[in-house]
């Protein structure tokens, strides 16, 4: 699974530009599903038919392919690029970072002379791709770039850009590999445009029309110096979401996760996240409503180029999903 993680986190795929990610994931899941399709919003949907008797439900799993990034708004006379955000970005963490465009071109993020009394905003930042004038600059207004960072493995920890949410994609792929017959009809949805408002999940959930929906995404932690108070820490197992800023998890789905984890002896923790939400919110509000929950991978430094997860939590998430999906469920 680590090879898969490395391949996915290092790939290019900001919101709206998920095509390279989609091709990579498709390679991995070919042969692991009964049917694979791509919908109007670019979601990659892999369907597994129910096998092994009745009592199955129609279940949608969602992990998003897209990552936060930047979009070019202006090319100046000297070939420097001004930009805006695609998804939630905190401008001060960008300085000195590197971004990559769809064609592989790299840019460095620079900053204007700093005014100590002023908070740094996007207006003070620019991207330098080595162009010398507007005319010789190959990047155009509207082009989108993502961060660049190689994955590092150190102890139990994996560090890279875009653990949010390629780690969820990797968990879902590994679950597809390990899951044998399931009584459930399962749609594994690799969704698009989560970072700009869970848009891909909204339309794919409409299409799949599930009875139960589960997002697999990262969550914050409260285990770093002077962090926000939060009872989630790295290495304590996958986190079962109770609530976030956009959703109250269906109690039946939450209990289903916890019960299976207890049975299988998989460490887990409960999660209450005060800011942010996931694809599960979009799924929950689809059509007449869907029983929805979220299995989270604890992650430090979310939405920076160095997101850190613990491999034991990742492994636990796969084991838990396989345990859940292998047997019938009664919510």
């Amino acid at each position: 699974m680590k090879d898969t993680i490395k391949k996915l986190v290092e790939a290019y795929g900001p919101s709206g530009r998920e095509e390279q990610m989609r091709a990579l994931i498709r390679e991995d899941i070919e042969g692991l599903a009964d049917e694979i399709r791509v919908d109007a919003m670019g979601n990659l949907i892999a369907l597994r038919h129910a096998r092994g008797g009745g009592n199955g439900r129609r279940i949608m799993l969602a992990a998003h392919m897209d990552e936060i990034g930047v979009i070019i708004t202006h090319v100046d006379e000297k070939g420097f690029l001004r930009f805006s955000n695609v998804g939630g970005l905190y401008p001060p963490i960008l300085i000195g970072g590197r971004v990559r465009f769809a064609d592989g071109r790299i840019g460095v993020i620079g900053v204007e002379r700093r005014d100590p009394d002023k908070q740094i905003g996007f207006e003070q930042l620019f991207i330098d791709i080595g162009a010398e004038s507007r005319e010789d600059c190959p990047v155009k207004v509207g082009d989108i770039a993502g961060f660049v960072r190689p994955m590092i493995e150190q102890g139990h920890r994996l560090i890279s850009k875009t653990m949010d949410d390629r780690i969820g994609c990797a968990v879902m792929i590994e679950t597809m590999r390990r899951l044998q017959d399931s009584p459930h009809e399962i749609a594994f949805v690799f969704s698009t445009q989560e970072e700009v408002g869970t848009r891909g999940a909204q339309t794919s959930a409409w299409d799949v029309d599930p009875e139960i929906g589960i997002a697999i995404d990262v969550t914050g932690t409260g285990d770093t110096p002077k962090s926000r108070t939060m009872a989630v820490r790295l290495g304590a197992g996958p986190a079962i979401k109770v609530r976030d800023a956009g959703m109250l998890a269906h109690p039946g789905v939450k209990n289903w996760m916890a019960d299976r984890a207890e049975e299988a002896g998989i460490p887990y923790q409960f999660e209450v996240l005060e800011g942010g939400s996931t694809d599960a919110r979009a799924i929950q509000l689809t059509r007449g409503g869907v029983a929805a929950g979220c299995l989270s991978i604890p992650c430090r430094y979310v939405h920076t180029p160095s997101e850190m997860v613990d491999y034991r939590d990742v492994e636990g998430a796969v084991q838990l999903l396989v345990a859940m999906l292998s047997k019938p469920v009664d919510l």
Partner: protein
Amino acid sequence: MNTLEVLEKLSNAFGPPGGEDPTRDAIVEILRGHVDEMRVDALGNLIALKRGTGRYPLKIMLAAHMDEVGLMIMGVESDGTLRFHVAGGIDDRVLLGKVVLVGPDRVPGVIGLKPIHLLRGNERTAVVKTDALRVDIGAESKEAAGKQVQPGQHAVFATQFGPLGAPAAAGEQARTLVKGKALDDRAGCTVLVELLRGEPYPYDVYGVFTTQEEIGSRGARVAAHAIQPQAAFALEGTTANDLPQEEGEDVSPSTTLGHGPAITVMDRSLLADRRLNDHLIATAGELGIAYQFKQPGTGGTDAGSIHLVGAGIPSTVVSVPCRYIHSPVAILDVDDLQNAVKLMRGALDRLTPDVLAQA
């Protein structure tokens, strides 16, 4: 009625969010005989079907919103002036001293202000908030005002459409600018009217004149649900802040008047479908039509709500650049509008199911 006459008629028409009826009536009148069906849905959208030649089994939706930013009258004060809320985004700074037309009788009123002679201290620099403003219709009492105007009635700016700029010198090509209210989005409505008045397309086209865009793209959402098209284009009048910059500044305007129709890549509501944008760009190249990209990241349109309907609808936006939108008067270049029609006509004529095939 030529393009400019359509724009004039629609710009002058009354149509704030939820009160689009007069604008809709004007469009129905213009379109009669040019489309196969027209119906009005529960939210007041006008849905015009132009049947295709039957070559491709596609349904394509074109959306332009009828509503304009305006006011809603909230109550009558004892002195006969009117309290109001704004409907849609209006900058507090543009309201002072403007003439509006209130209600079905189009009662003229002035948004009152204290004359500059009487301003004291920071009153000269402070922005007066909307809730401190009143519309003065010349009534002397609550009773007198109540005979002309009721709470809940709408008001719009009273600006009349007209040409702008000096005539061209001998041998020069005239640049045709016009000014008027509600160019956002009567410019898009005009483009849509022209697209519907022409020859049929190789597939069915649903031209939707939507309601309530300015308060959250509400009409477009239900219309898209009813039609379930394979792709959608929103037609807009968008921001053009192409005015002179400060010394040393080097930033792009959102769009520039006279540089052609603007294609959206990303705004707050939408990441445009890349297949549709590539198709528009290829069409512009073939036809030699200048186009520009709208500066990414700001604004939102009907396409934002359309693309999320059902299992998802590939969508993008083509806009006519307009200066000073969401104020009592905006300016556009008629060439941009004509070229938006040409670009869209060319793109629709060339659109095939292959364009929408997933990469």
